């Protein structure tokens, strides 16, 4: 059996306090070790908080510079305890652009960085005001399992998971900071939670993949984040879910034999016609070009 254990860390980060958040992360990395998990996943911007506004400027860290030494305790913990860590932070590049990024640290080193591609800038959101969009979706090897990180709004664009899965991802890791909003007569959860759970189920089922959703909790200026972190199996069912609105952790298992089974029974990924998609997209883009002319 090919299985790995993962700890979902549904936390309430301290807004704008990198040091306090690093301490919080270290406590949970230790907890992951204790519970026998090889990977711990934190929510979007877990090291900084979400509605940073102008403090984005103070939170940015260039991971290729001296500034990154603040993360050394995380690198060390991942090496000493043999626990990989996915966490969110404000990344600053050499040209002083800021990104809403997530890194995966394994054995003392950063093995993957995902820069959030789709930055919501409508309603209560203003990410594009501060961040530069990432340039794509990558897959990386997580203890022998191919994974891809999509951050919150990335998943609302179905093309993101399409790309990740066709690049070879078996697990789609969704880290998020989703505010609880919308009530409906007869519904026992916020409508935002309902939308999320339906979306994640569809992605897991039609892309025949594990989907792990880690959402934060806590309040920032009255806006509450809904939590409800969960895991969907490649059959589209929610295997387990955490409480809404409450801090906590949950250990989940990924079993690649089950993924193998689902992909054999319904080989949607095998049958995906990438050439056709490419041709159609080229057609769409060329038509746009013609209109511009």
């Amino acid at each position, binding site marked *: 059996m090919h299985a790995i254990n993962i700890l979902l860390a549904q936390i309430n980060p301290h807004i704008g306090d990198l040091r306090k958040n690093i301490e919080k992360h270290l406590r949970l990395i230790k907890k992951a070790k204790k519970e026998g998990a090889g990977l711990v996943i934190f929510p979007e911007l877990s090291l900084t908080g979400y509605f940073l506004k102008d403090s984005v400027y103070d939170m940015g860290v260039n991971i290729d510079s001296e500034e990154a030494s603040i993360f050394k305790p995380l690198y060390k913990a991942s090496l000493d305890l043999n626990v990989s860590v996915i966490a969110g932070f404000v990344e600053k590049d050499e040209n002083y652009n800021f990104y809403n990024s997530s890194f995966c640290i394994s054995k003392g080193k950063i093995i993957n960085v995902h820069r959030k591609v789709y930055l919501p800038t409508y309603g209560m959101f203003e990410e594009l005001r501060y961040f530069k969009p990432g340039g794509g979706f990558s897959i990386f090897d997580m203890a022998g399992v191919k994974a891809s990180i999509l951050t919150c709004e990335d998943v609302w664009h179905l093309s993101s998971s399409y790309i990740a899965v066709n690049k070879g991802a078996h697990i789609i890791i969704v880290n998020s900071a989703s505010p*609880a909003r919308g*009530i409906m007569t007869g519904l026992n959860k916020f409508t935002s939670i309902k939308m999320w759970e339906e979306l994640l189920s569809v992605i897991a089922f039609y892309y025949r993949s594990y989907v792990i959703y880690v959402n934060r909790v*806590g309040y920032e200026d009255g806006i509450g984040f809904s939590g409800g972190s969960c895991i969907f199996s490649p059959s589209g069912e929610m295997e387990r879910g955490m409480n809404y609105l409450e801090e906590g952790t949950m250990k989940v298992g990924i079993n690649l034999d089950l993924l193998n089974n689902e992909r054999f029974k319904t080989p949607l990924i095998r049958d995906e016609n990438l050439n056709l998609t490419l041709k159609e997209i080229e057609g769409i883009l060329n038509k746009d070009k013609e209109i511009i002319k």
Partner: protein
Amino acid sequence: MKKELPKIDEHNFPIIYKHLSYFIKDEVAKAGLKSVVLGLSGGVDSTVACYIAANALGKDSVTALLMPYENSSKASLEDALKTVGLLGISHYVIDITKQINEYFGNKKNSAGKDEIRVRKGNKMARERMAVLYDYSYKLKSLVLGTSNKSELLLGYGTIYGDMASALNPIGDIYKTQIYQLAKHLGVPESIIQKPPSADLWAGQSDETELGFTYEAADSIMYLLIDKIYKPEVVVSLGYDENLVNRIYDKIKKSQYKRRMPLIAKISERTINIDFRYLRDWS
């Protein structure tokens, strides 16, 4: 069906209750405090806010101030005392008659009866605010707001009076929904049943003064605000044109009450314009 104002019912009540309670708990803790103080009138709004606060922080961390004026409804004061007793919270009764009458004096005012009534009402609301903020300092407690979404949108409140607070758990909940919430919280029937009133003068009624019922206004405001439907679209759905326009007008005209004062920009970085941080920043 989807175009109707959602009801707070037995299905969504638990998560709403949890959410509002955690909101108070989390934001009070972030302010470095443990408790709240609120003005308890005996009306449904402040009673609901009080129930949620007691659940969030525990009965020992909520203080209610009952601040009657000489002509305030005696029944409402009784209702407020009932809530205090049921929740087991501490309370103070602070009569504001003296300072209000002292300010206005007995001399005949050249202004009309209605105008002096409104001025007196505003003064009472601000006097209560001033007492609340004094107790906020005295008790190291945040002032809990008790304005609902309907009155905030309609501007049916006194700026820097009852509209002033540090935290408001019910400001995104329409009056119609407040009644539903009150039922699920187990608020006494006498509080739920009485007609909505600011109780600034004897026999005052919100709905008479506004000229429409909260139920009618809430269903329209839900479409205008929550659903971002233009007034003409709301009218096309079968709502009374005159009422839709009146409500939309009230919302627009009272926008100033919902914002911080305007600051003339002169520097490179100006408070609330391009100096942008959360209140939770620290």
